[in-house]
């Protein structure tokens, strides 16, 4: 049985490394992106094997799904910009193809020059070898699992990862939400968003499926958020699921984005950080320390923060997909 598991591990790792290698060796960017999405899905499988179902959920939804959508829309944007520069006139999506294959030419990166081969290989081998050697000789330790386990009853939740994220190491999570917000502000600082380079799919299939899938996605998102207090799940996974539903809606109507109302949108995007900060400062004033909770209040406060964080993450992911400040919004 053990030998079979070792075989599974070896095959899975070989697959992951092989897909990563083909992805980085590809001269066709579209192929590289598709291989990267495959890479993310294989990683999710590895996380399940390493007894980390929370991470597997997040990897499948965020690492493979959302990152893949971001990469694909970026390739479309690059292709549209190249076509516009070549023809010397503004290029309005949906583009009218000059020929049947005009727009499906792939974006290429020429294979790397020979002279960087030896230095790059040596450098990567040395760094990877040092890292692997250090990991092999790392002293065996039980980690922080017993400490977390001993304090679970004061955390307010029953799932250790959620307890670490929102109680024991809430500081990390707070700063993480701030980074998500800063990334969006950075993207918005580059200007208003232009049209998404996608054609609305003709026919009833996509709208019909969305009518079916989006309610299911909302129910799933809320369920995953609620489940986070006692089982794998939580704000990040729920935010990613809701964000993916939002991205699907944007893709179904790429040229008729609803006019995003400025103030509510900004309130939603900053809700996670703002509420977290409020709770943190309150904890400071009440004598529990920054981001500390009274034991009796831990559960409701954690749920409150998680709801706000889910909303912020979902809205931010959709806004990052659309890229750029909302049009018609004079801030």
């Amino acid at each position: 049985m053990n030998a079979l598991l070792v075989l599974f591990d070896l095959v899975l790792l070989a697959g992951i490394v092989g897909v990563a290698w083909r992805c980085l060796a590809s001269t066709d960017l579209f192929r590289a992106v598709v291989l990267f999405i495959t890479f993310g899905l294989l990683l999710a499988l590895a996380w399940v094997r390493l007894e980390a179902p929370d991470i597997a959920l997040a990897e499948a939804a965020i690492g493979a799904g959302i990152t893949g959508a971001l990469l694909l829309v970026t390739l479309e944007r690059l292709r549209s910009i190249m076509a516009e520069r070549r023809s010397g006139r503004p290029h309005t999506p949906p583009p009218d193809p000059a020929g049947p294959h005009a727009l499906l030419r792939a974006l290429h990166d020429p294979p790397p020059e020979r002279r960087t081969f030896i230095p790059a290989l040596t450098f990567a081998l040395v760094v990877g070898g040092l890292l692997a050697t250090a990991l092999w000789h790392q002293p065996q330790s039980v980690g922080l699992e017993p400490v977390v386990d001993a304090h679970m009853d004061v955390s307010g939740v029953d799932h250790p990862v959620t307890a670490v994220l929102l109680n024991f190491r809430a500081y990390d999570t707070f700063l993480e939400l701030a980074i998500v917000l800063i990334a969006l502000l950075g993207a918005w600082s580059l200007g208003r968003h232009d049209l998404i380079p996608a054609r609305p799919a003709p026919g009833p299939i996509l709208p019909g499926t969305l009518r079916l899938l989006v309610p299911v996605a909302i129910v799933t998102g809320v369920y995953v958020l609620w489940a986070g207090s006692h089982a794998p799940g939580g704000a990040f996974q729920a935010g990613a699921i809701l964000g993916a539903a939002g991205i699907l809606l944007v893709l179904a109507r790429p040229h008729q984005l609803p006019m995003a109302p400025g103030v509510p949108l900004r309130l939603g995007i900053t809700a996670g950080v703002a509420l977290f900060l409020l709770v943190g400062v309150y904890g400071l004033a009440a004598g529990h320390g920054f981001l500390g909770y009274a034991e009796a209040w831990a559960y409701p406060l954690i749920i409150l923060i998680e709801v706000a964080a889910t909303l912020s993450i979902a809205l931010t992911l959709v806004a990052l997909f659309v890229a750029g400040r909302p049009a018609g919004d004079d801030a």
Partner: protein
Amino acid sequence: MIANTLTVILILAGLVFFAAGTAGMLRFPDVYSRLHALTKADNVGLGLVVLGLMFQASGPSDILKLLLIWLLVLAAGTTAAHMVAQRTWTHGEFESDR
């Protein structure tokens, strides 16, 4: 015991369909025949795997969840295949596919 045997048999049968679908995707010459191979074989393969896993479920809620997973993948897969086929129909195949 019977449940375990049924699980193994059904999942193995499902894997055969997956292998056939993958072989079709790798070997067939154009987008349409690849989609044909993938959608047909993988839907049956996933159905068999899900059916096999149902014998390991601990209760009716697990069985319903597995069924829901199969139905959602069917819906999403159908839509994705339709969109790939439609884009190929209006725009031609990707350069890297040829």
